[in-house]
Structure formats: C-alpha cells, structure tokens
C-alpha cells in the first residue's frame, strides 16, 4: 500500500500522518469488504476486526485441541485394528487443524504461546460440545457424523472468510472434516446393521449427541449479538439459525439410511418457509456448559494443563538446544 510506504522515512510519522494512514487504510478496507475480496495480514485493518478474528480463530484452534480428548478416549479400546488406525489418524488430523489455525491467528500478531497460555489459564473458550463425555464406542460414530457434520456446515462458508489465512486454512480443514464425517457415518452404519445391542448403542449415541450438536451453531439469531458485525465483515456468511436449519435437514435425510431416528418429533420441512425446523433446545444447559459447568469441563481443562505443564521441560530443552546450535554456527561462520 502506497500510503504505508510513504510513512516510512527518516522522520517518525507525525500523529497527523498516522491519521492519514488510518483513513486511507479504512478506505481500502471498506473497498475490500464492498468487493467481497480478501484482507491479508500486512493490510491495514480495524482493531475490532483484528480482535474479533484472533478471538474466533483461536477459539476454533482451542476447540480442535480440546476436541482431541473425547475421541482419544477410545483409541486404546477401538474394537478392530482398522478402526483404531482410522481413529488415530482422525485425532491426529485435529492436532494438525489446531496447528494451521494457530498459525493463521499468529499472522494477526498474537503468538501461539500466548493463545495456549490463555487456554490453560481458563481465559479462552472452546466449543462446548467437547465437554460431553464419550461413554461408548458408538460415540465415535455420532461425533464424526453429527459433531463433524455440524462443523462442516459451519466451516464451509468460512472458506470464503474475508481474512485470507483463515479462509485458506479452512479449505484444508474442511477436506479432512469431510473424511471424518464419512468415517463417523460408516461407524454408525456398521453398528446399526450389527447385533441388536450394537444398534441400541448407536441409537443411544445419536440421542445423546443430537441436541448438543444443534447447539454448536450458537444461540438463536435474536440472541447472538456479534453475528451482525461478523456478517458485515464477510467473516460469517449465514446466520446461526440458517445453518442449524440446513444441518437438521441433512441429518433428517441421512438418519433414514442409518435406519435410526432423531430424538426430536418436531423435525419437519416447512413448505411455506422452505426451511427445516426442529423442536426447542435447552439453551440454559448450553449456557451452563459454556460457563464451565458441563459434565467434562474440569476434566478437559485439567488434561490440557497437565500436558502443557508436563511438557514444559521438553520445550525448554528444545529451545536451549536451538540456542546452543545457533551460537555454535555463528562461531563456525
């Protein structure tokens, strides 16, 4: 940007100059928004836009990292070696998603260490869905099919988010999520066609994960204060309720293939609005879990903290080694 280049000179830019830069930056930003084009890390952006993105991307990264735990819970007990391999690869993918997302957030000027510090200090949020326990093997299927399915509905539009690094990270994340969803569906399909006890296990998991996965889209539109601004910034493309309705429609069709049912007699397609509808959700429960009072909040945080603390000496060793090698190379050069 020409305006920024002019500001770099022998003399520190005056306050007036900064104001001119900000004005030009804002004009450029507004232009990008109007064109539905992309903002890149070095472009000028409003502080609130930057803050919103750091919050959203880091929460998304934290969700991937905490989200490893409920599924890692079944790696050691997966009932066939092939399922064990698939599950390991899936949980490992989630670590990879966390890495891309932290990297995308770092381009906005917040380091991964700082974001990780906020997570283990309990100052950052992650998706409340991961505070529910995985009590049977069928939960691996329900998480893949429903939780990852909801994530895909949410994340496919994010591939077009106005902030370039976020959108590009989401493209890869979404590709892998679609494998995850299919493997979850396949687990449930196998169970639903298995013994009566296996089918019951599958139905029970669908029953338990249904409402929490619908709530992954966030509060109803009339109770979602940040949505409007995010949509104006081309970060969010569709409202929470719109995405939730689409997701319900997908589930309603796919559950028939499974030969299972959704635990909601009010699911229907409204011919007038051309939208899928569902029964009432318990938003009090959502708020409780979000506030840290869900079934597994304390356990998930404790595990993350412990891994972080137990690993401190390893990170210190790697840093010390890198410094020693750098010093050695300097001497050699």
């Amino acid at each position, binding site marked *: 940007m020409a305006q920024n280049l002019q500001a770099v000179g022998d003399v520190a830019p005056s306050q007036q100059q900064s104001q001119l830069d900000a004005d030009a930056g804002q004009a450029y930003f507004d232009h990008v928004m109007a064109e539905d084009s992309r903002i890149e890390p070095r472009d000028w952006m409003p502080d609130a836009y930057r803050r919103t993105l750091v919050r959203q991307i880091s929460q998304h990264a934290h969700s991937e990292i905490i989200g*490893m*735990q409920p599924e*890692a819970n079944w*790696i*050691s*007990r*997966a*009932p*066939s*070696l*092939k*399922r*064990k*391999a*698939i599950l*390991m*690869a*899936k*949980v*490992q*993918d989630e*670590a*990879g998603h*966390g*890495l891309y997302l*932290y990297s995308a957030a770092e381009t906005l000027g917040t380091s*991964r*260490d700082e974001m990780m510090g906020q997570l283990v200090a309990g100052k950052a949020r992650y998706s409340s869905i991961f505070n529910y326990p995985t009590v049977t*093997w069928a939960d691996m299927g329900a998480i893949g099919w429903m939780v990852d399915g909801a994530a895909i509905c949410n994340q496919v539009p994010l591939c077009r988010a106005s902030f370039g690094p976020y959108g590009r990270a989401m493209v890869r994340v979404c*590709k*892998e999520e679609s*494998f*995850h969803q*299919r*493997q979850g569906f*396949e*687990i449930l*399909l*196998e169970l639903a066609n*298995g*013994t009566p*006890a*296996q089918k019951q296990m599958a139905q029970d998991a669908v029953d338990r994960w249904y409402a929490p996965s619908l709530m992954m889209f966030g509060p109803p539109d009339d109770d979602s204060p940040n949505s409007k601004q995010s949509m104006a910034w081309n970060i969010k493309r569709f409202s929470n309720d719109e995405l939730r309705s689409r997701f319900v429609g997908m589930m309603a069709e796919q559950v028939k293939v499974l030969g299972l049912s959704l635990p909601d007699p009010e699911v229907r397609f409204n011919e007038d609005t051309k939208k899928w509808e569902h029964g009432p959700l318990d938003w009090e429960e959502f708020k409780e879990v979000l506030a840290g009072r869900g079934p597994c909040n304390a356990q998930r945080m404790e*595990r993350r903290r*412990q*891994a972080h603390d*137990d*690993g*401190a*000496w*390893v*990170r*210190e*060793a*790697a*840093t*010390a*080694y*890198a410094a*020693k090698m750098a010093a050695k190379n300097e001497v050699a050069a």
Partner: protein
Amino acid sequence: MIPTGSQPSQAQAGSLAGVGPATGSQPSQAQAGSLAGVGPASATRITPGNALRPEDIALEVQRGDVKPSENVGEYALRLGDDALILAQRLGHWISRAPELEEDVALGNIALDQLGHARSFLTYAGAAWGKTEDELAYFRREPEFRSAHLFEQPNGDFAVTIVRQFIVSYYQFELYRRLTDSSDATLAAIAAKAVKEVDYHRDHSAQWVLRLALGTDESRGRLLAGLRLLWPYVGELFEDDALTARLGDAAVAPSSLRADFDRLTDEVLVEAEIDVPHVPSALGGGRRGQHSEHMGYILAEMQVLAREYPGASW
C-alpha cells in the same frame, strides 16, 4: 514453537488408515476397489497409492495366493506383536504430548507401527485361518510374542524417546535385511515398513540430541531413561530355534547387533553420552512370558471386542 525433527510419513500413514489427503499417484477407481476388496457401496473412496496394505495381504490370503508355514506365521507374529504393543503404548500420547508437533509426530509413528502390525498379523493369521483382529483381540497373554521393551510404560517424554530410539534403530536394521527374505510377503511388508522406520530413527535421534544437550533437567531425564530401558536391548538380538529353522526366510536377530551398536553409538557420542553398562533383563517375550505391564495393556485393548464376540465393526 519448538524446532523438531522432520515429520514422519504422514502420507503413508494417512493412506494406510484410508483417511487423510490423497497423495501421490492415484489408481483408477476400479483398481482401487479391487485392491481394497470393496465395491462402490463404500462411502469412502479408497486411494491407496502404491503402498502395500493389510487388505491387499488379506485378499491374497483369501484367494489362496499366499499361505505361510506355521514357522513363518510364528515369526510374523513376533514382528506384528512388537509393533502392535508399541502402537498401543504410543497412542496414549495423542492429546498429551509436550507440543502439538509431537502429538502429530508420535501419532504418526503409532499409526505406522499399527500399519506394520496389521500387515504382519494378517499374514501370520493365514497360517492358522485367523484374522488380524482375532489375533489381536482374542489371544491370551501367554500367546503374545512381543519382546519386553515394547510393553514398557511410556514414562516421561524422555523414556518414550529412549524406547523409540532403541526400537527404531533395531527395526530399521531388521526390516532392511528382511527385504531380502525368501518369503515374498515378509519381504514386501518389510520394504514398506523400512521407509517409515527410517523417519522414526530420524525423529528419535534428533530428540536424543535435544534432550541430551538441552538443559540439565532434560539431560538427567534422558540418562535415567537410558538406564531404565537399556536392559531390554539384549532380548531383541537373541537367536532361538525358530529363527534358526527359518533360515533365509527370517533374519537372525544376533546378526543385527553390530550395526545397531555402531549406529546408536554414533548418535550417543554426538550427544556426549556413554552406553549404559547395565545387566540385561530376563526377557522371555518370544516364549509368551511377559512383564506385569502386559496384562493391563491387553485388558484395555481387548475389552470392547470381547464384550461383543463375533460382532463386526
């Protein structure tokens, strides 16, 4: 962000599991279907690349193209059990590693080991008409043939790295030679495995150096790990009647020792560490005699499968 070694074989691990991004050359759908032994009914398109997968071996067994002798089966059981028990141990690190890069790396290594286990066990099972899962989930402890090193607890990160260091240098020498086996299937499994284990060597060696030369604490922990696990090295290199009977089909474990010592010593010298002088542990894993740890590993691994015998997953 910490500087870690190069990432192990993501693409290979991914294609083994049938998930992850498709990489490398992609065979046609029809070819993929016939290789995998699955029809178009599967919701997942299989893109195996050129890698040998356990499903390929199972198909060859079904068609009657390969049938190992009981001796070869018993040998494959040893190699498969080593890899399986290690994968079970390593899998525990996923979501608990010191840094995200290590969640990914240790997960990859676990996945590679599990892939090797599946291939060896599928082939071993053919000697007795059993599947990989029947062998993994429905054998009793004395029927497992893994050496004691593989069942040792993860300990702290240094202990896990020492175990990886020993295992990867041992397995590399073993698989490298096994590619010349007179048994074509063992040779093919080894040819795939050796490439992956080469990355495992790199990963463990780089961490040995970082921990040894990093801080006083990391060095102390690494030395403790070496003292703890070096007694289990000897068992890996013991010949017995089975390896003698197998001749060219197998590799005599004792023939690997000199290269193992030389190559591990190169790393330890750079790390300014002497090989620990510790007495050998008793061993006995190849005869089905295991340490106290094994029962818990199997109990956890087998619990669900045994709750639903005969079920399909």
